[in-house]
């Protein structure tokens, strides 16, 4: 797990923590509004993930691919392919582990759930001199990373969770 910023004593996280992540999204939108929800994610992307951002800035796209492989190995129930090309990393999330666990437990998924991946990871990409996009959502999606200025997030490409 050398590409993850923090190490746990067990190989995968406890899936019930997705309950708290989902509930936190609802709280942030209700308490701080959608703008506050976005600001929280962008600041977290810049500050909490600073160590990873430095790895990405120094290591470029190979470091991005290595990080996401390790990241999803540590998330229970994930079904994800990470494809690496010289100027593009594509992450195909066939089964989002969080949304699958929430639905399996009968939880109402926050409709903004899939937006969090974009706002959090776009902030991290900016800090790492990269660009990124998210397409899809609602349980399956595609993330792409490329050098700064190459990728532009298209309007309406992120699905609300229904």
């Amino acid at each position, binding site marked *: 797990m050398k590409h993850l910023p*923090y190490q746990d004593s067990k190989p*995968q996280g406890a899936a019930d923590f997705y309950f708290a992540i989902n509930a*936190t999204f609802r*709280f942030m939108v209700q*308490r701080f509004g959608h703008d506050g929800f976005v600001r929280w994610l962008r600041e977290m992307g810049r500050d909490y993930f600073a160590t990873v951002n430095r790895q990405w800035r120094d290591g470029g796209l190979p470091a991005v691919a290595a990080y996401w492989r390790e*990241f999803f190995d540590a998330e229970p129930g994930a079904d994800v392919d990470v494809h690496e090309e010289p100027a593009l990393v594509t992450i195909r999330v066939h089964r989002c582990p969080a949304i699958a666990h929430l639905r399996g437990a009968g939880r109402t998924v926050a409709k903004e759930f899939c937006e969090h991946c974009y706002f959090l990871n776009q902030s991290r990409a900016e800090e790492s001199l990269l660009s990124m996009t998210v397409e899809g959502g609602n349980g399956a999606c595609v993330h792409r990373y490329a050098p700064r200025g190459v990728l532009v997030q298209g309007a309406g490409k992120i699905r609300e969770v229904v």
Partner: protein
Amino acid sequence: MLGCYDFCGHYDWTFQWIEKNAGKVALHEYWEQSISNDSQAHAAALIVKGGVSGMADYWGHTLSEEAPGGGFSARIDGDRFLVEMTDCPSRGFLLRNKIEFSGDYCDHCIGWIGPLMRRAGFSIHHAHNHQGQCYWEFRPAADGNRSDLEEWKATLEKAWAERGNKIDIFSGVSAVSQKESKK
């Protein structure tokens, strides 16, 4: 994506973000509304309905998921439920990774468990030493002290004090704002 592997890290970071942006009262509201009422609705369903049996079901599942290597004991003792953490997986994650974003991470537990136990009719007797060790006695709200449990708790507090740990104590209260601290 925010993951569950390093959940305790971004959870702790979020505590300081809420407190910095909206104050300590908002952080306490987050623990009650978002964690106790929303995230942990499954715990409330078990405990409000089943009392100490529900506590055994809840903590039996969650501690075996979070701490498969052990570091805790949790058991029913008559009409009470007792937990002793010797290596908290949550606080331990922060200590091992040298994470300290918020002022007092351990407060989050009473922040969500307190309101739940109030609804379930139990009082909380809890102390933690900020080093991954704590005890919990959940007892029916009308019940008094039991001498063997007072001895158990005093022994733990004495051992922590001898190590120089800062100890926060919650005696018969259910709000995070009602703690007493001693060094």
